[in-house]
């Protein structure tokens, strides 16, 4: 459902993404990890057609997102890293607006909007201007907007940031349910526990290159540690273990 072929993106002389070959199947919940500035958001913007690849291509549902953007984007639901929405619309109007952009029709439309507002605990404030929402409420509304047209591919950039524990739990359950229903979920996150528990496969990107990709078992095998957590594997692959000694020494100094 999501396929990248030799995908590269450079900004001037800086390589943001290099030769990314990835395939995510229907029903998969794919976790995309990497340190800050590794190229996660750039990859997501390439997948959603917001950036043009320097080399390579992106296929969504079999359509090249840059050659046939309207057809490819019709498959997509996208949750950006910043929930910047139209402040002067109400929550309900915003969902209706998104439904129109995705050309949603049928009797389920209003019902679907009502269900999503209910699901994310927004029905009471659904008729208030988005301007009055907190960051967490905006994040929930952004997720609901990505689901309003029942997408076949869902791409989320840091979706749990700003959510309260209940909404984060709801989101995780929703993502699991969508994946089991055949929706392809591609999610970038810094919360490794979520990725470890939820994702069927995990990809780790560092300095623009995909340095590991597979199920948890495959990653453990790659790291040659049977009991390693995703955090251990992530630090091993992207660096960071060297700081452990410094932290230990700092702790000893403080204790003495």
């Amino acid at each position, binding site marked *: 459902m999501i396929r990248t072929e030799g995908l590269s993106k450079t*900004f001037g002389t800086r390589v*943001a993404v290099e030769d990314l070959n990835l395939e995510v199947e229907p029903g998969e919940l794919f976790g995309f990890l990497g340190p800050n500035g590794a190229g996660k958001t*750039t990859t997501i*913007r390439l997948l*959603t*057609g*917001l*950036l*043009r690849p320097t080399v390579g291509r992106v296929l969504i549902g079999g359509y090249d997102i840059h050659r046939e*953007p*309207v*057809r*490819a*984007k*019709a498959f*997509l639901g*996208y949750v*950006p890293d*910043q929930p*910047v*929405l*139209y*402040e*002067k*619309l109400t929550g309900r*109007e915003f969902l*209706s*607006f*998104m*439904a*129109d*952009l*995705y*050309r*949603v*029709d*049928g*009797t389920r*439309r*209003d019902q679907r909007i009502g269900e999503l507002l209910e699901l994310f605990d927004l029905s*009471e404030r*659904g*008729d*208030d*201007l988005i*301007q*009055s929402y907190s960051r967490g409420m905006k994040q929930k509304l*952004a997720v609901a*907007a990505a689901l309003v047209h029942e997408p076949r591919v869902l791409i989320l950039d840091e979706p749990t940031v700003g959510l309260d524990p209940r909404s984060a739990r709801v989101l995780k359950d929703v993502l699991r349910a969508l994946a089991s229903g055949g929706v392809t979920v591609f999610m970038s996150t810094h919360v490794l526990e979520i990725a470890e528990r939820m994702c069927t496969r995990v990809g780790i990107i560092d300095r623009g290159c995909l340095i590991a990709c597979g199920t948890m078992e495959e990653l453990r095998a790659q790291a040659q540690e049977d009991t390693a957590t995703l955090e251990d594997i992530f630090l091993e692959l992207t660096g960071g273990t060297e700081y452990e000694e410094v932290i230990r020494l700092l702790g000893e100094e403080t204790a003495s």
Partner: protein
Amino acid sequence: MSRLLAWKFRVFWRSVARRSGAAAAANLIVALLGILWTVAVFLGSRHLFARVALVMSRVPPEGGSTLAGMESLLLSGVYLLGLTICLFTAFGAAFVTMYSSSDLPLLFAAPLTVRQVFAVKFAEVLAAESLWVVLLILPATLGYGAGVGGAWWYYLMAFLLALIAVFLSGAVGTCLNLLAMRFIPPYRVKELGAALGSLLGAAFYVLSQLGPRYAAGMSPSELAKLMGRFPLANVGYSPAWWLAEAARTAAHGSVNDCLAWLGLVAACSLVFFMVSFVLVQEAFYGGWAGSGEVRRRERRRKAAARASRVPRSAARRGSPVLTLAAKEVRSIARDMREWAQALYLLVVMGMAWIVPAIRNGEIRFPAGGAGSYASLAAIYMMLAGLATYLALGAVGREGESWLLLRATPVSGQEILLGKVLGVTALLVIPGLVLALGLGLALGGGSRAALLAGAFALVVAPGITSLNVGAGALRPVFSARDPRKRISSGALLLSLALEAGYAAVLAAGVWMMAAGSAMGIWIRIVGLVTVLGSSACAAAAPVVLVGRYLDARESVVSNP
């Protein structure tokens, strides 16, 4: 608390004094201009009231009471103007320092009582508005004393009067915040502040343009008559009148009367101050949300329940273009800043037309054919001015939301068409009102009004589209203020396109008007020119820039 006040002053002083280069020079220039302004107000006031005193000395005693009233009216007018400015400043300052201030959590977390924090904030409000007292009320009062020959103690009273004026405006302005908190949600405070600022600016602009035209050459008695038309300047319950009476009685040697009038103003100030202190600080501590939000939510819920009772077609599907147009209309219509700014623009443009037409205190527009051309030009300029403001930034206004919009299966052309339709719908309303108004005002009758209305309808989509297209070529997504999301290049391009479109339209209109002398065909060519150029102006930017948007990356900032 005194330490806190000292720190506040230190922070303020550093923000003013510790500036280098151009900023320091600008501060110095502003300070010098302030001093010059104060001196000018003092001299102007002294001159005016010296003339009044001269007139009074030449009339018989039986006319003296009328002239005494004239003196109070003039003085009351000055105080009314000063107090109004101070009140607006105090209201705005209370908005900023008491509710939008970023240091509130810090101060409330410190070992200070709410009352102490409130007192510090109240002092900030007084400091903010005292500037106007120094620039207007105090020099005018001193000038009055110098003009009528007040005794030495008059000048001490003048300072006391200025102090009481600061206190009165600060207390009333702070109290008004309590009302504002009841009705304005916290997230709309800044928006309302900006809107009020624009409206106030428009009012002062009108005053600055029309005032000198009408007031030039007026005698003191005519000026006093003009002041008499403002109810708050000449009634016994107006603080402006009380201050005027205090100054007048002091200047004429009656210290007891002066103190009585000043006491009345002080008592009034004290009442407002007490109300502020008792009521406002509670709301201030509870926060904006704590004071009026519950009621507002109830009202919103009721409105939502009413809306849900309206039957809606369950199987409807909105076109993306119309949805985008509706979103554009909602976004602009619900933003008070947009309305206020548009009104400001209309006022400025209106003044540009009205002021040159004023002759001997009357407005005289050109009549006949020249009047018709003038009305068409006025309609075009008004639409172009509003479009520069509303349409040029239509894409830039999206800000970070642009990414979300571009991730949807909607083409660039559809996005631009939606924006053009939405903004045109908003532009057409004032365009038609102005067209009908000008058509009737210029004596052309209903036929001229209808023609002008048709002209507005024909040109509005083209003007909007040219601006939306120019703005979409290089939008500024990163500006925090949506009104600043226009690049200078886009502005210049839109002005050039508007000028070109205006030239073609002028040629078309000229051919249509010249038709009777040059045959029917030239009239048809003129009509085709007007309609054809309008269709091109409306369609071409949408098609061409829409393709350009699809061909380029959707970024909102440089990576």
